[in-house]
């Protein structure tokens, strides 16, 4: 036994150890690059499709979209979004006519951050759709904010003037009132608060109705090619 231990301590040279690890690392690296390269197109296409579907869902009648960011006091069309730069999406109908904005927003819910996307038509000052992108609200209660279609429908023509308010179920009558979900008051209030906050943040940055950035045709073409 003793001799064996001695043998092992004087075993393979450190050169061989380094070499083994280097080869293993190299092969592993090549394999990872290979899988990354081969799956990347599908992954980006999936992500883009998901986003398009969400945008089209919250903005009825939209056929094309482009990403917009607020830079140097105006809304500009961007190809890729910068880091930490809030981006919103302009929705346009098939003929390239501007319809509305799809604005991503997030805020604290009952359990964790709720991320939503809502459609906003600046001309009428109306919220026309709301889609929950991410939420960890309690299954069975809080998750009604996207499972309860009645609640989601509350956001299909909602005035943001002066601000959205949540009221007890069955009492909403004004165009800016949302019926809360029974048993999930906190989650429903959270959605309303998130939209209000995002609206306040964006209201001053959006250009006057009618002067929105035009749909850039080349932009879409390059995005399509990228997919």
């Amino acid at each position, binding site marked *: 036994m003793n001799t064996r231990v001695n043998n092992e301590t004087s075993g393979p040279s450190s050169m061989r150890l380094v070499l083994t690890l280097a080869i293993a690392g190299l092969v*592993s690296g090549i*394999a990872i690059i290979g899988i990354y390269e081969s*799956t990347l197109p599908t992954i980006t296409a999936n992500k883009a499709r998901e986003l398009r579907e969400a945008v089209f869902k919250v903005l009825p009648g939209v056929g094309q979209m482009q990403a917009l960011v607020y830079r140097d006091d105006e809304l500009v069309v961007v190809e890729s979004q910068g880091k930490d730069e809030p981006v919103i999406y302009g929705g346009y109908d098939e003929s390239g006519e501007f319809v509305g904005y799809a604005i991503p927003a997030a805020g604290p819910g009952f359990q964790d951050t709720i991320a939503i996307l809502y459609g906003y038509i600046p001309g009428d000052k109306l919220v026309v759709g709301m889609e929950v992108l991410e939420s960890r609200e309690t299954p069975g209660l809080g998750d009604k904010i996207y499972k309860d279609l009645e609640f989601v429908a509350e956001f299909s023509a909602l005035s943001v003037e002066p601000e959205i308010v949540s009221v007890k179920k069955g009492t909403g009558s004004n165009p800016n009132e949302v019926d809360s979900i029974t048993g999930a008051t906190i989650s429903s209030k959270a959605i309303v608060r998130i939209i209000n906050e995002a609206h306040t943040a964006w209201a001053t940055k959006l250009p006057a109705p009618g002067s929105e950035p035009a749909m850039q045709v080349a932009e879409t073409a390059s995005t399509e090619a990228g997919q």
Partner: protein
Amino acid sequence: MKKNESYEEFIKGVWRDNPVFAQVLGMCPMLAVTNSAINAVAMGMATFFVLVGSSFLVSSFRNWIPKQVRISCFIIIIATFVTIADYTLLALVPKVHKELGAFIPLIVANCLILGRQEAFASRYPTRLAVMDALGMAAGFLLALFSLGAVREILGDGALFGVKLFSENFEPWVIMILPPGGFLTLGVILLFFNWIKFKKDEFLEDVAEAERSGN
């Protein structure tokens, strides 16, 4: 004889030495992603792929890997397979990948996988190592599935998203939440130990009877 040996290695992982029910390994994915059957199965398949792939490679190269750096080599091999599984799931089933989230990369830290490399694959010929990995991975998959199925049936009244009961079924919300994972796992472990206990008791009785008969 040889066939029997591989079969033995396979079946021990599925039942007698089941990684979850007998060895209580891999608890982190076990509790975290079993809130629905589909998530559990996806996780099980990813682990299956990683375990079998790594065991095959480790066993094939076991004579070339120096003892001093074996753990690092195992980890490199496992991590590569995990990354491949991660990207493949992301490309093929983005919805499931989103649900599983960080737990796919965390397969690399599943002690079941490294444990099999160290305890088995690095010491036995490739054929046995693969059989062992297949058995262990199948046992893990079975455990994940049984937990996921129980939790989805009670918590959502469905299996693989198909509603099993009438519209009025009252879901047991706790089953989809983290405590449900602990409760279900605890009850299943209890059940397994009870079976084992009863079996031992029975075998003892038989032995007793034989002795007195002789």
